[in-house]
C-alpha cells in the first residue's frame, strides 16, 4: 500500500512572490527566497538538510547550463547531494516526487526541494521555438500545440463554448485570495474574459497562463521528524507516467499516461471515489479548457462530464464541493519549472490548514497534479492531514 518504504511528509513550504520580472533578485536570490521560507516554516536551519533536489524546465530560459551547479551555495548544498530533475512541464511535480523518494527510501531524513524559473532573463517564445534545421512540423508555441487538442475535446463532449472562460474567470478570482499570485486582476469581469482576443482559436488571451519569475520549495522529512511537526502534510501517494509524443492511435485528449498515472495514484492512496474523498485539487491548467479535460481524465467524473462540473461551480472555492486551483493555478502564476511544484506545495498547504485566504475549510486530503511535454509527462501526489493507513 502507499508509496512504498518509509512514510514521508511535508513540514515546510516556501514560495516567492510570482511576477513577470522579479527585478529585485538574482537567480540565487530567487531560489533562496523560497528555500529560506520553507526552512523557516519547517523550523530548520541549513545544516539540518541532508540533500537538495532541484527542478527546472529548459535551461535555455535563463541561458545557464545546469544552473544547480552554480546555485549550490545559495541552497546550502555544499558538501551535500544535489539532484537536478527535468521532465518538461511536469518537472515541479516530478522533482517533489524525487525528493520524497529520497525519504521514502530511507536514504535521507530531511530533504529540501526547490523548483524555479526566471523567465524574464529571456523570452519564453524564443526559448520554446528554437527551430532545429530540417524539422518538418511547424512550431506555433504551446498554444498552437494544445488548441487542436482542445478543439477535439469540445467536439467530442459538445461542451458549451464559454466553459473555458468560466475556468479562467474562476482562477483569476481565486488568485485574488493568494498574495503570491502573479496576476491580480480585481476589476476583471467575465465579459472581459469572453471578449479578450482570440489567440489560438478556441483559446482566448485570458484563457492562457502568464510568463512568470518565481520559485517554490518544500522540506520533506521522514516519519520521526514529521511526528515532531505541528501539522505535517503526509504523502499518501505519488505517481509518474510518461508516454510517447506521437504514435498511431494516441488519445491526445485523454492520454493513457494520465489515466494510468491517476489509477496508480488512487490505488496507492486507497481512494476509490476521488470526487468524494479528495477535498481540494491543485491541477496543472495552463490553458483553461484543461480543467474539465483533467477532471475527466483523473476520474473525478465520467468522460464528457468535466465541463458540467465547471458549469455548475463545483470547482469554485466558494460553494464548490471539489475546489480546483484555489491558489489561482497556472493561469494566474506560471514560472514554468516551478508550476508543478507550486501545485504540489499548495496541496500540502491546504491539508496543513495554512493556505490563508484560499484555504478550503476542513481540507483533509488534497491532490497535486502536473503535466508536461505534449500532454505526455505526468506527476501526481496525494497528501493528507492524517498519516496514511498502514
Amino acid at each position, binding site marked *: 500500500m502507499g*508509496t*512504498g*518504504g518509509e512514510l514521508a511528509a511535508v513540514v515546510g513550504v516556501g514560495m516567492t512572490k510570482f511576477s513577470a520580472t522579479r527585478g529585485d533578485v*538574482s*537567480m540565487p536570490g530567487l531560489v533562496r527566497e523560497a528555500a529560506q521560507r520553507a526552512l523557516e516554516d519547517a523550523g530548520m536551519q541549513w545544516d539540518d538538510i541532508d540533500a537538495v533536489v532541484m527542478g*527546472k*524546465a*529548459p*535551461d*535555455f530560459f*535563463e*541561458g*545557464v*547550463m*545546469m544552473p544547480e*551547479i*552554480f*546555485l*549550490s*551555495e545559495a541552497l546550502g548544498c*555544499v*558538501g*551535500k*547531494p*544535489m*539532484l*537536478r*530533475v*527535468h*521532465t*518538461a512541464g511536469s518537472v515541479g511535480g*516530478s522533482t517533489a*516526487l*524525487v525528493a520524497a*523518494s*529520497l525519504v521514502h*527510501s*530511507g*536514504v535521507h531524513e530531511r530533504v529540501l526541494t526547490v523548483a524555479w524559473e526566471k523567465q524574464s532573463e529571456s523570452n519564453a517564445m524564443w*526559448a*520554446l521555438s*528554437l527551430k*532545429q534545421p530540417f524539422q518538418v512540423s511547424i512550431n506555433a508555441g504551446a498554444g498552437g500545440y494544445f488548441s487542436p487538442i482542445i478543439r477535439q475535446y469540445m467536439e467530442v463532449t459538445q461542451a458549451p463554448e464559454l466553459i473555458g472562460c468560466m475556468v479562467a474567470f474562476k482562477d483569476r478570482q481565486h488568485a485574488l485570495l493568494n498574495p503570491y499570485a502573479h496576476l491580480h486582476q480585481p476589476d476583471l469581469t467575465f465579459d472581459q474574459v469572453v471578449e479578450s482576443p482570440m489567440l489560438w482559436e478556441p483559446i482566448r488571451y485570458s484563457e492562457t497562463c502568464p510568463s512568470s519569475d518565481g520559485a517554490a520549495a518544500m522540506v520533506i522529512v521522514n516519519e520521526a521528524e514529521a511526528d515532531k511537526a505541528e501539522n505535517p502534510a503526509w504523502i499518501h501517494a505519488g505517481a*509518474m*507516467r*510518461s*508516454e*510517447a*509524443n506521437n*504514435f498511431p492511435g*494516441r488519445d491526445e485528449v485523454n*492520454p*493513457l*499516461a494520465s489515466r*494510468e*498515472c491517476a489509477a496508480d495514484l488512487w490505488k496507492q492512496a486507497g481512494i476509490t471515489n476521488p470526487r468524494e474523498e479528495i477535498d481540494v485539487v491543485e491541477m496543472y491548467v495552463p490553458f483553461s479548457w484543461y480543467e474539465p479535460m483533467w477532471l475527466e481524465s483523473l476520474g473525478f467524473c465520467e468522460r464528457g462530464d468535466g465541463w458540467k462540473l465547471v458549469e455548475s461551480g463545483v470547482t469554485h472555492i466558494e460553494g464548490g464541493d471539489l475546489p480546483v486551483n484555489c491558489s489561482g493555478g497556472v493561469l494566474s502564476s506560471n514560472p514554468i519549472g516551478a508550476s508543478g511544484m507550486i501545485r504540489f506545495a499548495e496541496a500540502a498547504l491546504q491539508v496543513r490548514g495554512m493556505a490563508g485566504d484560499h484555504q478550503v475549510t476542513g481540507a483533509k486530503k488534497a491532490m497535486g497534479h502536473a503535466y508536461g*511535454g*505534449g500532454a*505526455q*509527462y505526468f506527476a501526481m501526489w496525494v497528501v493528507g492531514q492524517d498519516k496514511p493507513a498502514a
Partner: protein
Amino acid sequence: MRKVAIVAAASRQEEKMLDTEVEMMIPLISEVKAKTGLDQTEIGFTCSGSSDFLAGQAFSFVMTLDAVGPVPPISESHVEMDGAWALYETWVKFQMGIIDTALVYSYGKPSPGSLQDVLSTQLDPYYVAPLWPDAHAVAGLQARTLLEQGIINVDQLADCAVRAGTVESREEYFSQPMLSDPLRKADCPTYADGGVAMILAAEGKAEELCEKPAWITGIDHRIDVHHFGVRDFTTVPSARIAAEKAGVHDGPIDIAELHAAYTTHDLLLRKEMGLPETPNHSQRSYPIKADTLMASGLLRIAEAARAIWEGDANRALAHATAGPLLQQNLICVLSGEDT
C-alpha cells in the same frame, strides 16, 4: 539497504555520429532488453540523463523517449545531469521497494555544437561566463596550482597521458606544445558522441537475469562550492566524502573507472580517494580519449560492471563528475561477490 545490481549494459561512442539520439539509443536499449529478456512492460522504472544545451533544443529528451517504446505508458523520470545520477535516482526507487527492474540510459552528442561555448554557459553567469573561459583554460588554472604546489609533477602527467593512450611515450608527451599552459593536448579530452543503456535489478531478480550480477555495494554523490575564488584547487572534498560514504575504503579496489577528462583530474581524484596511481588493472577506457558529456559517468559505471562480468575485477569503483573543476562527484562501488 536493498541489494541492487547492474545486469546488462550496452554503449557506443564515436567521434561524430550521423544517427539522431533516438536512432543511436534504440539499438543500445534493444540490446540490454535482449540480454535480459525483458520487455519494456516488465521494467519497473526508466530514468535518463541528457542536456538541452548540448542538443541545442529545449525538451530534447522528449523525442529520445521514443527509443524506449513508452506505449503503454511507463513510470519514468529524467535528470538534466550525467546518466550516473539517473542511475542514482533509480537506485533510490529500488530502496523504496516498489520496483525490481529498471532501465537507465544517457547520451550526448557534442559534435553538432561548439562544446567549449556550451561549457562556458555552465559557469557563474554574472562574474565568469561573460568572460567565456573554456574548459581547458579552467583546467589549466587548476593544473598550475597542482604543479606549483608540488601536489603532482609533470612526469606524473606524462605517465597518465601514456596510460590513457593520448600519447605513446613520455618523450612524445613532452614534445607536444602547450594547449592551455601548463596542459598539453595529451592532458585534455577529445570529445565523442555516444550513449549508454543499462538494466538494473534487485536481489532475487538480478540472479535470474545475469550470470554474475555487478552488485552496487555503495553509491553516493556530493557537490562542492561553485565560486572559483572559494574553491581550493588542490582538493576535491565532494569526491572524498562520496568515496567514504560509498564505502570505497571497505576493501581493495581492483579497478577504478574514473570520469577524469584531464590527466590532472585523474591524478587528483586518485589522491583524494586514496587510490594508487596505477591500479592493478588499468581503466577499460579513458574519458581523456573520448569524453561524452552527459554519458561519460554512466559509461564508467557500465565499464566497471563489465570488468566484474568478465572477471577482471571483484570489486570496482566507478566515478562520475559534473561542473567545472570536478565540482560535483558521484562514486559507485560494484562487487561481483554476493556478500
